[in-house]
């Protein structure tokens, strides 16, 4: 089993290119996701504080 995983990770010798590519994809997409959600939550909290949490 572990031999199959090792072969998979080796990516036919191109591991040094495929994994960084996918790693970067997750970083960029993940980063955009986190940044957008964080600023969204922050502004919601400020709004609720200002409005005393009346309307959404």
């Amino acid at each position, binding site marked *: 089993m572990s031999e199959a995983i090792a072969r*998979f990770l080796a*990516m*036919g*010798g*191109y591991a040094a*290119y*495929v994994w*960084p*590519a*996918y790693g*970067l*994809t997750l970083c*960029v*997409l993940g*980063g*955009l*996701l986190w940044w*957008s*959600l964080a*600023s*969204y939550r922050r*502004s*919601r909290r*400020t*709004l609720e504080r*200002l*409005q005393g949490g009346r309307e*959404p």
Partner: protein
Amino acid sequence: MNLHRFANPARFMRLSSALLPWCGAGAAALIGIGLYLALFIAPPDYQQGEAVRIMFVHVPAAWMASLVYALMALASAIALIWRHPLADIAALSAAPLGAGFTLLCLVTGSLWGERMWGTWWVWDARLTSVLVLFFLYLGYLALVNAFDEPGRGARAGAILALVGIVNLPIIKFSVDWWNTLHQPASVFRLGGPTIDASMLWPLAIMVLGFMLFFATLLLVRMRTTLIEAKIRVLLLSEIERHAAASPRQAVAS
């Protein structure tokens, strides 16, 4: 009457809060399936071997880079012609996402180039055009944030986006022409001359996943901008309420 139309766009907020869960779930599902197909199911390319899997992230990113810029230009046109504030906010919110996709496309492209050519950057026509597109994004983001008054940046950015979309095909044409002039030999096909069906499915799913991902983040960022605008209005009116109340007493007494 007092609040500007976009200060409380109840309709957009309701609509987006209904759409958000679906877009988010859809994006997660599609990207999840796409990654699984791309990494485990799709066969290696007979020429490029396993490295072809980079294509499954590079091509969707390239596609999103130009799609988002086109959407930004469309939103800017709507904002300028009909002065629709939501269009301004859409363009402003889409720009960082588009820049992210373009950066992703560039780096995965250079990874691909490194594997094929042994150098980290290849002045291939398509990659160069994406590099120029990246600078158009940076120019837009710099311009939009270069003004103190928020409205001013959005309006200037809208014009720049339109100027950019007009210039993009011209730049693409001139770069292609310049590329064939200096590098006639190499046919540097990122996706390979033909993509057989087994690779087409993961690619299509990844592209759809990226689009839904973009839609989700766009809605989130637009809601954030609207809420920030509302916060500014609330703070402003509080200042006015204090100003209106206090000085007159001070003067009168």
